[in-house]
């Protein structure tokens, strides 16, 4: 059985599903990266994802149009982001606590709506795999890299875009300065509130898409608490990735590869308790975060509400 684990089919299978599984983490963690670089800690990612997942599933199920479903997830994410922005920017709420509040709201609300509007678990036809011409015909590699659905490609395209926006644009300069020293940005006439509204709403939208990538892309169902901690892992990946899109990508891949590995362990019936296998990626996260803790520095103004005073 152990030898089976190292057969090429299994290894390729792990790679392919690892790449696919990284999708929701990438959307959510890139969104969170923008928020944190501007000094806002959003712990409500999980709640935003759940509502996004439900909205995408429900609208797709009712209309049969996956794109409308995706749009619904985007709108729901944006509204959640707007609420989060109001609470943290205007009301100066403690970000960690209000984030947990938004998580619980999303958890309860998505389940309530599911019970009332759907009732029982139903599956739908999600976004189909998009075989990229020529590239997907490459033996082995084609299957691993170029036969995923559109949301998977979108997640990977987001990484260089995020890097570019943060490092090469005036908007990115503003975001970074506000996360480090909002007083300095304010003294130069930059609206700290406007930039934080932007990053929080964008984070909400990306969390919504992350949810949709589960409910109408990877799993194609909606269930109560279907994200099961995924949004919190995404927040951890931002720390793991040292607030850089490329680092986040590395973290998301590592995490989802280990996850894929433990899934295959169970599929192949390797005789270790499944609970232990499921723990593997989480234990890894903790270990890597501990190892990385002393080396990276968070944005100085992270989780600090901004008020003009000196």
């Amino acid at each position, binding site marked *: 059985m152990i030898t089976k684990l190292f057969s090429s089919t299994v290894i390729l299978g792990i790679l392919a599903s690892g790449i696919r599984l990284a999708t929701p983490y990438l959307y959510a963690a890139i969104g969170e990266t923008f928020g944190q670089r501007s000094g806002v800690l959003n712990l409500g990612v999980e709640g935003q994802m759940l509502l996004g997942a439900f909205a995408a599933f429900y609208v797709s199920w009712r209309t049969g149009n996956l794109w409308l479903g995706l749009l619904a997830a985007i709108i729901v994410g944006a509204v959640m982001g707007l609420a989060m922005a109001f609470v943290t920017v205007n009301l100066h709420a403690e970000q960690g606590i209000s984030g947990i509040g938004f998580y619980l709201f999303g958890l309860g609300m998505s389940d309530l709506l599911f019970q009332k509007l759907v009732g029982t678990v139903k599956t739908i036809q999600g976004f189909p795999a998009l075989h990229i011409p020529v590239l997907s015909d490459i033996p082995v590699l084609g299957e691993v890299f170029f036969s995923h659905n559109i949301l998977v490609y979108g997640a990977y395209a987001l990484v260089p875009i995020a890097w570019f926006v943060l490092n090469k644009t005036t908007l990115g*300069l*503003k975001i970074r*300065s506000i996360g480090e020293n909002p007083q300095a*940005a304010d*003294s*130069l006439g930059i609206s700290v509130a406007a930039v934080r509204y932007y990053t929080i709403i964008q984070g909400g939208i990306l969390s919504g898409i992350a949810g949709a990538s589960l409910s109408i892309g990877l799993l194609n169902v909606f269930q109560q608490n279907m994200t099961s901690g995924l949004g919190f892992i995404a927040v951890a990946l931002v720390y793991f990735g040292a607030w850089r899109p490329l680092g986040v990508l590395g973290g998301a891949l590592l995490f989802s590869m280990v996850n894929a590995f433990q899934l295959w362990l169970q599929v192949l019936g390797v005789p270790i308790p499944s609970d232990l296998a499921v723990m593997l990626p989480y234990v890894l996260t903790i270990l890597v975060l501990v190892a990385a803790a002393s080396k990276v520095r968070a944005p100085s103004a992270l989780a600090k509400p901004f008020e003009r005073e000196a």
Partner: protein
Amino acid sequence: MSHKQDVLPSARAHIETVEMRGITKRFPGVLANDHVDFDVHAGEVHALLGENGAGKSTLMKILYGLYQPDEGEIYINGQPVTIHSPSDAIRLGIGMIHQHFMLVETMTVAENVALGLPSSRGFLTDLDVVSQRILALADIYGLKIDPNAYIWQLSVGQQQRVEIIKALYRGASLLILDEPTAVLTPQEVDELFAIMRQMTQDGHALIFISHKLHEVIEISDRVTVLRDGRKIGTRPTSETTKSALANWMVGREVALTLDREPVEVGDVRLALENVHCGSDRGTPGLRGVSLEVRGGEILGIAGVSGNGQRELAEVITGLREVTEGKVILEGEDITALLPGERTDRGLSYIPEERMKDGIIQDFTVAENLILREHHKPPFSYRGFLNQRFISQHSAELIRAFRIKTPSQKTLAKNLSGGNIQKIVLARELARHPRVIIAAQPTRGLDIGATEYVREQLLEQRRQGVAVMLISEDLDEILALSDRIAVIYEGQIMDILPNENVSVERLGLLMAGVREPAEAQA
């Protein structure tokens, strides 16, 4: 258009005069500015002088758009203007160099300058263009700077230049300098003054906020004094003197020189032998510091901020681990002792950050006064606090140290900075210490409170206590110390007796230059 033309301030509307008339600003319970008139014109340095809380900063924040006045008008070149935000002020040609630099440490000089400005490439940054313009500007005003350096790599003086460039880059015609010399070495102050003179010759108007009288006399053309939110008057600087300004500022006679009478010096109370330690940034904090402080003397530690002063205080008080070397208190090696054990042996500490390390803000005055000794009789018995004695004790200290507080049950955070420092002093001095470490004991205090703190330290010296005074204010070091040790990058450059020491010599030592010859080389 050439780059050189691009960078000249003439790109903006030139400010000939700025007038503030009848400015009033109220905060809850405080009248920060009470019908203040103030004006400045091109080609002059107008000094704004006053104690903390006199309303200088409020007035300037109004001019820079950070606050809105409740009453009063502002005129630029005779035209009324309203300034709602810093971006309005920048558009009108007003720039401000804040006391606490408004720089993003993790970004480069060019990024800091470009921040918030439209880019020539639309939504993409144009840092190479910005860098070229910075170099051109730097050339005109003699400001040496590397546009690609990160802020955290720069010295305080260099960071200040970045702030000046930031303002000039935005076409500032009027520059407000808020206590710009507070953090500089004497040489850096000279350089800043040279830059300021260059700017006034170029037609800039400068407002210089300070409470250092000799600097005001040296650099300004006119001086306005504020007290308790009101304007006391404006005079040409040439028609006034240091002592006249001091009396104006405080509203009574002030002794500008302290009486440091000779005291017999006793035994060595505190000694450091080749002490090494780390710093919060992971770099070495102290690198082989050796020194001694004797009873009845004040050893001044001079140096530019961030050269190991904090680490020095912390290794002595036991808050930071010594990696090599020994700390000796009255002959006993205390290197391995806990902070509390050092306290019990007669070490007192007046910490640099009085709000953070000196008091517990949400504790009452009485509670703050017993922080050191609360666990011992007569303050407590078997774990129970003796409220009657505590109350009696704090009443005595409040009287003896003239702490202005509504009651001993008032929360410490509600007192003024000077009175908070008096709480710290009362707690640390009333226990008859053997050695006192005083770190920046008068920073941010007004003249009255500063005078009081300095007198208390001199009184301890008279009583034979060994005092280490760590201060970035060279005037304070010179006024109080018997000997002066200069610290630079975690090392003691030299220890000089405080007799006819030249400020230039100290300044060079503070900049890391040991021999005058090195400076010329």
